[in-house]
């Protein structure tokens, strides 16, 4: 089955943004083939009812601003682009307190994809996910 997901890049400063779902929370997520792992903003994770007690471990990331430390949580239900993951490990970072202010709640990285085939059509501004 092929799922087509339109995206809109209004200008050269626009990311490819897709909808995601963290339990009941609807998120806006940047689709980022340059990220090895999925990263969510801490606020979105706290709002979904997770607490600091549920941090599994910490991990270091190489970001544009240097090496940063993120907390790893196991998310019960996480989905985006027609793909559902249960008990999915995500990295959580406090975007706001690090002055990372964008209208997104996180980044979908390569670890979110398993055997799916994903095509990016920039001309049509469309992602196609072959599930």
């Amino acid at each position, binding site marked *: 089955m092929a799922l087509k997901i339109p995206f809109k890049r209004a200008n*050269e400063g626009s990311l490819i943004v897709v*909808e995601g*779902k963290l339990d*009941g*929370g*609807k998120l806006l997520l940047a689709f980022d083939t*340059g990220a090895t792992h999925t990263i969510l903003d801490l606020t979105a994770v706290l*709002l979904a009812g997770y607490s600091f007690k549920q941090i599994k471990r910490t991990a270091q990331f190489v970001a*544009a601003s240097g090496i940063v430390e993120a907390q790893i949580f196991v998310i019960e239900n996480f989905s985006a682009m027609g793909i559902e993951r249960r008990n999915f490990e995500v990295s959580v970072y406090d975007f706001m307190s690090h002055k990372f202010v964008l209208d997104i709640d996180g980044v979908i990285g390569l670890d979110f994809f398993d055997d799916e085939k994903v095509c990016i059509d920039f001309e049509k501004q469309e992602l196609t996910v072959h599930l």
Partner: protein
Amino acid sequence: MEETALLSFEEIKMLYPNEWVLIAEPEFVNTEIQGGIVLLHGKDRREIAYSGRDLVKNYESYTLRFTGDFPKNRRIWL
């Protein structure tokens, strides 16, 4: 706690300019929010997250969005 009727996002922006707004049953067209039910609003995103944790349990879905403008034409390197 505040809860209002279904509002368009344009109405929400006018009522709560430059604030974070916790919206229940949000409706999106692609990734653009169209509206929903305002549960909480304020300047402190983290405070809304803590205060809203119990409120969102009563709804199928929710989202936390900012009503102000983000800088345009900013180049992004994540």
